[in-house]
């Protein structure tokens, strides 16, 4: 009898340990020292280097030939392969949406026109299925962005690795503002005239200005209270508290604006309001007023690039050509997907910009160092330089080329396995067992 118990116990233990073994099959990210040898290293900021890239303590510690390698480092032979800094998407809702049509899985669109205090970072789901799907294509970082209303919330730059939002946070937040647009509902049933739409837009713009005046007043009361404790503190007003740092030039305003006439008005608005830190986003019709944007010195995050022109009367390739035309006019241009589940297509958006006229080097910068500079994280991200974060990927070729494969991936020093649900389903179903017959 005792033997039977022993046997059962043994059986249970072995089943349990078997499960443990199965569990360990799941590949995990690892941190440590890595030596990437024989690579073509595209640094972006310091030209192309043939040789070795060393990673230690999450940072790039050496780039070049005959560099010292740390003891115990894992060597990855990159013969014939290319190393690029991780691509940075300038705007998405990645991590804020799981299933497009299921509203309860959508966390980017709060109720109300004025919700700048809403934090995208809070709602980022580090375990969103789309995150591994995105990073295995070399997109390591994205600005995840709330949408809807006039002031939808606070966007956050995230690295696509980590198990909590704070582990993912890449060091930049910005307040989103939508320049008022009122459009007819597509597919008919909305008979508002152009005049009516315009009036509604003017009403919204008036609202924006009122909000801004209130924020200025709030800032004055707040400053006075800080300067002298005898002065009254302002009432609790989370919306105003969120906007005040923008007024004070401490936080960047991400101003979504697309129509050319709105872009012109927005430039004037920003100048009148003396907003120090501002980035225009979207900017679909930027090509029409590129000189004016350049003159105002306002940087732009544009995209999607692969989309139809904004007007039926536009030349068919205007959306593709827009980033290149703005860059040529002297605008500082970063590229975004404005997508959720297919942020992985960022290199293709950049590639189409090149196919339709953008300088290749500028397009590469538009998904690496340029957004890093806009987000004030260029000391850590956006290029391959000693001392910067080891956020990079190893590719079989030009990262914009569709057939290029991403072989190795490092984000924030973590060697992240090339794995995602898309890859797992491929492996399970390529040679399905049983096949057609049982």
């Amino acid at each position, binding site marked *: 009898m005792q033997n039977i118990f022993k046997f059962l116990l043994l059986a249970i233990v072995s089943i349990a340990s078997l499960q443990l073994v199965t569990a360990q099959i799941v590949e995990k990210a690892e941190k440590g020292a890595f030596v990437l040898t024989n690579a073509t290293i595209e640094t972006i900021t310091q030209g192309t280097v043939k040789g070795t890239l060393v990673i230690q303590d999450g940072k790039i510690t050496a780039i070049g030939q005959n560099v010292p390698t740390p003891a115990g480092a894992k060597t990855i032979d990159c013969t014939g392969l290319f190393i690029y800094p991780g691509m940075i998407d300038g705007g998405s809702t990645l991590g804020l949406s799981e299933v497009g*049509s299921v509203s309860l899985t959508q966390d980017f669109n709060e109720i109300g026109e004025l919700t700048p205090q809403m934090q995208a970072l809070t709602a980022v789901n580090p375990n969103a299925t789309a995150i591994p799907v995105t990073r295995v294509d070399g997109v390591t970082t994205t600005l995840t962005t709330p949408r809807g209303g006039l002031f939808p919330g606070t966007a956050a730059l995230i690295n696509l690795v980590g198990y909590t939002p704070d582990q993912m946070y890449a060091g930049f937040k910005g307040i989103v503002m939508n320049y008022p647009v009122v459009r007819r509902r597509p597919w008919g049933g909305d008979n508002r005239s152009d005049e009516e739409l315009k009036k509604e837009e003017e009403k919204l713009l008036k609202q924006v200005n009122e909000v801004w005046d209130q924020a200025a007043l709030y800032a004055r009361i707040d400053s006075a209270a800080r300067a002298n404790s005898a002065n009254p503190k302002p009432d609790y007003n989370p919306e105003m508290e969120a906007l005040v740092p923008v007024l004070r030039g401490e936080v960047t305003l991400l101003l979504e604006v697309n129509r050319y006439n709105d872009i012109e008005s927005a430039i004037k608005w920003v100048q009148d309001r003396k907003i120090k830190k501002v980035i225009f986003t979207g900017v679909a019709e930027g090509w029409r007023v590129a000189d004016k944007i350049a003159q105002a010195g306002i940087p732009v995050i544009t995209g999607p690039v692969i989309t139809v022109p*904004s007007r039926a009367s536009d030349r068919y390739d205007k959306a593709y050509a827009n980033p290149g035309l703005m860059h040529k006019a002297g605008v500082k241009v970063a590229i975004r997907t404005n997508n959720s589940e297919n942020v992985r297509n960022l290199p293709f958006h950049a590639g189409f910009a090149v196919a339709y006229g953008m300088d290749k080097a500028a397009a590469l910068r538009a998904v690496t160092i340029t957004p890093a500079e806009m987000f004030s994280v260029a000391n850590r991200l956006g290029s391959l330089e000693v001392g910067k974060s080891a956020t990079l990927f190893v590719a079989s070729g030009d990262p914009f080329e569709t057939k290029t494969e991403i072989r190795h991936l490092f984000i924030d020093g973590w060697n992240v396995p090339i794995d995602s649900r898309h890859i797992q389903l491929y492996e399970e179903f390529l040679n399905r067992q049983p096949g057609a017959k049982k």
Partner: protein
Amino acid sequence: MKNLLFIIIILLGCQWSFAQPRTGSMLIKNGTVLTITKGTLENTDVLVERGKITRIGKNIAAPAGVPIIDATGQYVMPGIIDAHSHIAIDAVNEATNPVTSEVWVGDALDPLDVSIYRALAGGCTSSHAMHGSANAIGGECETIKHRWGTYNPEDLRMQGAPRTIKFALGENPMRVHGEGRSIVPRTRMGVEFVIRKAFTEGKNYMEAWAKYNREKATNPNALPPQYDRRLETMADILKGDIIIHCHSYRADEIYMLLNVCKDFGVKKVCFQHVNEGFKVAPELAEFGAGASVFADWWAYKFEVYYSTAYNAAILVKNGVVTSINSDSGDYIRHLYHQAAKTQRYGGLTDEESLALITINPAKQLGIENRVGSIEVGKDADIVIFNAHPLSIYAVPQKTIVDGVVYFDISKDADDVRLDVNPTEAFPAYYEELQLNHYRCMQGAFELLFGWMTERE
């Protein structure tokens, strides 16, 4: 004299309504010809005469009067075919009944849609203008050629292309009819039943007519069954005269329709979207069903949550005739790029990838003897690229339909609209962003989606 004039007028009228589409001749010199079916031919000429490919070879001399297009250093491939689109039509869904096989998209062709020109600018010469996915059995579709510049809807039709019909499984018909109108189907059980019932009624209708046709020979008093357009179409499907193109996502519903088709002896089926086709690829291959997929769309609704961008590769490697479609006025302009994604996701060869947007969709539409490859005798639907079409840097230079150049990048005008709306307020930009994934539901939205608010 009056009579003569009358006859002339009548004849002119006939000529107008039965006008043959414009055709042209040309010699495309010295390109890299991607024939699709017969390999890649370097430094090769393609001779086009009166809309057909008449010779492929080296150093072909241009017949008198035939213009020469120099394609040195360029890539010549068959015009891209989109097996799923909703461009060039001004109605998509007749969302009033779970079965609407009586309606036909061919009645709603819109030659003024600027999307036709944009598709040409992306190398796409033919598309399958489909009914939407609101109904389990939707309307008949229309295979069109992108003959831009005409005001006559008739010119768009690809004469002689087989009839096709739209079916739809899963969330869309369940939402529209079950949730929206509280009638069957509300579940995937209901969808199966609706389709089985329609097939059975079609079969009974067909038999009733057969019976009448037998009887009337001997019995002058025999009564014909009541004519029913809906059931006429169902009967034609059962006879094998119409190819089913079925909107579907989940493996279980795909498998269900295969079983239904087996039970009714229906053989011509192509699944559309078919995001989980990879899960039942052996069954699809065994049945001989086609699959027309997106390159990488997923997660926009729950039934596409368990998708993979490797879908096309798995299907191809299992022997399923697979195509990549657009379902979008945007994606129809870069199907060559969408096809290239199967090289990143699944490592398909150049030939396999290009077949996904040429000969395979042609097979799915039953027009593979006419288009989809560069072969002598086929229609001269051709696109010339400045680089290999699977490269991200490839830009279509000229797009040719029936030997006529409809898109030429060197002569491309800024504004090509045929129908100018002076009050075009704003732009497709936001709509496209929001609605890219929902073209299929056009016409059913107003009824259903309160959440599609005007300001997102």
